[in-house]
């Protein structure tokens, strides 16, 4: 059965990891306002990275992080008030959200913006909505160098402009893997959303827990899937052209059965790409469904496929994995500006 194309779904956009064509932008240049491209794309909801790790020094709590808006504030200088930012938790290994932290933002007024976090559980968590019990309300967004942290009960929350923690020789990747150009992201910023939560809020089945993030945009009175991400660079490396959009428009539970524009399943497509790159095609069913395993009863380590810390070298791990060891490193490492405490993201540049 053929899968409807992204265009047929009204998704004339391409959004995914870091600068992977984050869609159109409205620009003001002098007296000119240019609003180019489709209405669906938006750098404010373009997910750059997702992290899930045990709180340093307190393994009874976890840190969940969703970063958006690459090159911030160059492309956009606030969160989208017409969007839902989701951190989804699957507790039983079926790639369906059983718990979902939904973050929404107010309009920017007088240079200020606030956030509300709802926690949806059960069936509500798997639906496209912003429902659930409020765990954080009226949390100010940080636009300056000092992080504004909101604490409500067992939850700690931050949202705002911070140093991009991602590290990668992007130009080396483009330059035929001549990894000699240094860390492209060393001086870049993102808009970060950081939650500290008690592990109990993630369920009680640590061994089958996974995390992924998604952004939803309001369109004609309903919510549409905009971008999603779990492990690093999955959509970037494995999906071509419009397949990136199809991938963003489906839920992880559909990853094993949905078809690409070529009429093959994403699993087959991933296996073909792995084979072409020198990797093991069988890894396709490890990488899909695209969720990030997060067993919070064990130490966080991206290399062990268990969560992701800021300092985990996801590019080195991924390069080695998908090329069967043919490529091992991009020769850049973690940034030196990570904070040792909440919100962990460094001061914006």
């Amino acid at each position, binding site marked *: 059965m053929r899968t409807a194309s992204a265009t047929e779904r009204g998704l*004339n*956009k*391409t959004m995914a990891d870091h*600068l*992977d*064509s*984050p*869609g*159109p*932008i*409205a*620009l003001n*240049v*002098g007296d*000119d*306002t*240019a*609003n*180019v*491209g*489709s209405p669906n*794309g938006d750098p404010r909801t373009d997910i750059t990275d997702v992290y899930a790790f045990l709180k340093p020094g307190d393994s009874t709590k976890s840190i969940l992080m969703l970063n958006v808006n690459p*090159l911030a504030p*160059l*492309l956009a200088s606030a969160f989208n008030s017409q969007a839902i930012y989701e951190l989804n938790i699957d507790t039983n290994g079926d790639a369906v959200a059983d718990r979902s932290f939904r973050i929404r933002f107010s309009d920017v007024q007088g240079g200020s913006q606030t956030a509300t976090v709802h926690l949806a559980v059960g069936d509500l968590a798997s639906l496209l909505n912003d429902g659930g019990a409020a765990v954080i309300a009226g949390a100010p967004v940080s636009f300056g160098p000092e992080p504004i942290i909101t604490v409500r009960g067992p939850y700690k929350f931050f949202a705002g402009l911070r140093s991009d923690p991602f590290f990668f020789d*992007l*130009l080396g*990747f*483009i*330059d*035929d*893997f*001549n990894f*000699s*150009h*240094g860390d*492209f992201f060393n001086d870049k910023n993102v808009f970060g959303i950081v939650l500290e939560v008690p592990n109990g809020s993630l369920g009680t089945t640590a061994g089958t827990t996974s995390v992924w993030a998604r952004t939803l945009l309001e369109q004609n009175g309903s919510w549409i899937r905009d971008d999603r991400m779990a492990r690093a660079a999955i959509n*970037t*490396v*494995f*999906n*071509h*052209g*419009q397949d*990136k*959009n199809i991938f963003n428009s489906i839920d992880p539970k559909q990853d094993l059965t949905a078809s690409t524009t070529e009429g093959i399943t994403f699993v087959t497509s991933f296996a073909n*790409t792995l084979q*072409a*790159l020198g990797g093991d095609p069988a890894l396709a069913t490890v990488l899909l469904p695209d969720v990030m395993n997060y067993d919070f009863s064990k130490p966080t380590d991206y290399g062990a496929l268990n969560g992701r810390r800021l300092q985990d070298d996801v590019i080195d791990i991924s390069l080695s994995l998908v090329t069967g060891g043919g490529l091992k490193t991009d020769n850049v490492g973690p940034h030196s500006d990570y904070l040792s405490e909440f919100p962990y993201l460094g001061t914006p540049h």
Partner: protein
Amino acid sequence: MKTLARRDFLKMAGAGTAAVIAGAAVPISGFFAWTGKNALRFRAVAGMPKAPWPAYASYVIEGDVDLSRRSGNLVKSIYAGAPDAMSGIAFPGTVRSVRVTSVKQSGDSVVIGGEVTDRAGLLAGESPAFSIQIDRSSGLAHADFLGSKVLLKLD
């Protein structure tokens, strides 16, 4: 509200700077056209990195050249997104303005030489010298990107 062309944004953003240039996430094709007896305009596009990796970005070289005067202006940029779904976002630090300094024409082949006008923006090890060989019969062009040879499409 109006739609602005990529070229207009290049001008406004200031080519050669760390620019963000907006445009739609749409397919961008190369082209080659004579705009006068001895004047040509072209856009050469390549997806990067090369297959079998999915193209993550697009290398675009475009501009106008006066063959008789051996002059012209080109812009080379790296845009986010593959050529079939390129965004208008140029990676910061990758936009270069090139002043044409030489033109050699032989049959269907045109070799255009030039130099980057804003040398202060060059990356470490990046040469200010520029060259592109356009083969009109095949619709292809050869240029380099940070020292690596790249095959670009003109149509």
